């Protein structure tokens, strides 16, 4: 039995993971405060939790768009070139 076969351990890891997400957002707000931001491209990285939002949205959009293109067009059977 491996460590990850125990549901108890998996649940613990999950909790730790979600906790780390919250901590990261809080860290930013505590350490840097809510800064005055301008809605312009030049200051976009200073927007509160910008990296978190960009990371999550970027990941989801990329997966959907790429998988869509893959299924419609790019992915072929393994013997395609034979």
């Amino acid at each position: 039995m491996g460590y990850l076969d125990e549901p108890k351990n998996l649940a613990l890891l999950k909790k730790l993971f979600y906790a780390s997400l919250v901590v990261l957002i809080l860290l930013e707000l505590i350490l840097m405060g809510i800064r005055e931001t301008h809605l312009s491209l030049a200051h976009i990285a200073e927007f509160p939790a910008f990296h978190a939002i960009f990371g999550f949205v970027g990941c989801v959009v990329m997966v959907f768009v790429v998988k869509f293109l893959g299924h419609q067009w790019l992915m072929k059977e393994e013997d395609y070139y034979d």
Partner: protein
Amino acid sequence: MINWIPPATIFILGALLIPLFKGKARQLFVLTIPVIGLANILAMESGTEWTYGYLRYDLIFGQVDKLSMVFGYVFVIMAFIGVLYSLHVKEHGHFIAGFLYVGSALGVVFSGDLFSLFIFWEIMAFSSVFLIWFQKEKASIDAGFRYLLVHTAGGLCLLAGIVLRVVETGSLEFGHIGLDGLDTYLILIGFLLNAAVPPLHAWLADAYPEATIVGAVFLSAFTTKTAVYVLLRAYSGTEILMWLGAFMAIFGVCYAVLENDIRRILGYHIISQVGYMVCGVGIGTYMAINGSAAHAFAHILYKGLLFMSTGAIIYSTGFRKLTDLGGLYKKMPITLIMYMVAGFAISGMPLFSGFVSKTMVIAAAEHDHHYIIFLMLMLASIGTFLSVGIKLPYFAFFGKDRGIEAKDPPVNMLAGMGIAAFLCILIGVYPKVLYDLLPYEVHFQPFTIPHVVGELQLLMFTALGFFLLLKKLHVEPTITLDIDWTYRKGSKVFMWFINEPLARGSQWTVDICLVIISFLKWFSKNPVLAVMLFKDSLTLRFIGHLGGRTRRDSIRYLEDEKKHYPRDPVKRNPVGDSLLLALMFMAVYVMYYLFTA
């Protein structure tokens, strides 16, 4: 007095001496060569040495400055790691090809003129292809030939550019070139092909996964990074490269999302990571050039480590597709740790090497007010962590346990991986070791609070996206179409064209010539009678009969004449025949003269 020799010589001479050794002696010898190489590099000083006059030009084998030294150091270090990793390999050929490859890459880095650069460039292509062929499967033989053909085309393009440049400028010197005129475009295309910039990239993802386990480790390090070096030297500040680089950074990670073959995923990530470097070349500020060079240095080590640990998986299990793998963390724990060090390094996790190099390029884009580029590079970071940091290890080491028999690889492979992992962490924790090597003074502080927290947010929320979309992201047993489709399918169309229209067309011309020849043969047996027969048949057709005969007699006579053709030409009328022939040739000549004069 110079107390060093061009680094290429050490490796190329070393390659030639390998067959003299056997067993343990050979193991010792192949490990010694990179050590000598490193000692030699440490003895090198800035300046231009080892210049030879050739015809009217100077061939320079030792142009040394800080930029070439960065690449020199990391090439030699990686050569040592790669040799250690492949110490168990029995065939001499692997080491000979590997050393020629490393040597020629070093030759490019330290050559100060375009001619010796080109020669080393070609040796690189022709030695590295053996690292693919030694896999000895049909897929790798085919992929090797495609690799060679593509690189030969790129090399010819480079050569054409060099020749034009020498004719125009009269100088072979290799320095800053910049975009200006046909020659510079041709040279740039040659360089971009080796840097795997789309649409000239497909050779990489096509060939590297078909190489041998140890071959792929060498391949991942040298060809693309040599190209980054020459781009840095010759094309820094060329704006189009900034956009191409940012595009290829995203392009590579998108393909990696779809791929199933573990080394092909890594191949696409080479394209993506080289994108950061090419982008840095395009931005062209001191910070960006430092960033590109630093990222090339860090990249060679962590990408080598990625290929070494995935190589360990293939070595141990015999499987190379994520759909066949799973649950290996129990059986290959050390490999998992090594892989994750490299995975974190490539993703730019703080305290690993990618964080201190990649972010320098991204920050350079922001400093120079290229905000779109800045966002594109961040998006590529997300994709990097998504597939190399999470997807690949999740499906190979965790995920569904398929009960595969496996264990950690032999000690020499682990040692090679260990050194690379140590360097990835060392650079991440103490970036000064890398920053001190860079071409310009570094004014960049990676470990600031906003920087570290921002990067961690980016990566952890990417992970959140992955786990929420786990169902959507399951790996599929497919291959992915890429530009190589054009020549892999295109070659079939080409072969059809050869076999069908072209072969038939050529047969027609043969048939027509045969008819002409047999007619001439028939005609020349008795030209007089042939002409008379021709005249008689025309007369019969238009007048209806031959003089003094009825129609029926005329037809019978003509058939009889044709049957008995050629009768006895020379004896009957030798003078008349000769005269007729002479007249005919004269007529032909007169007509020819009429039309041409």
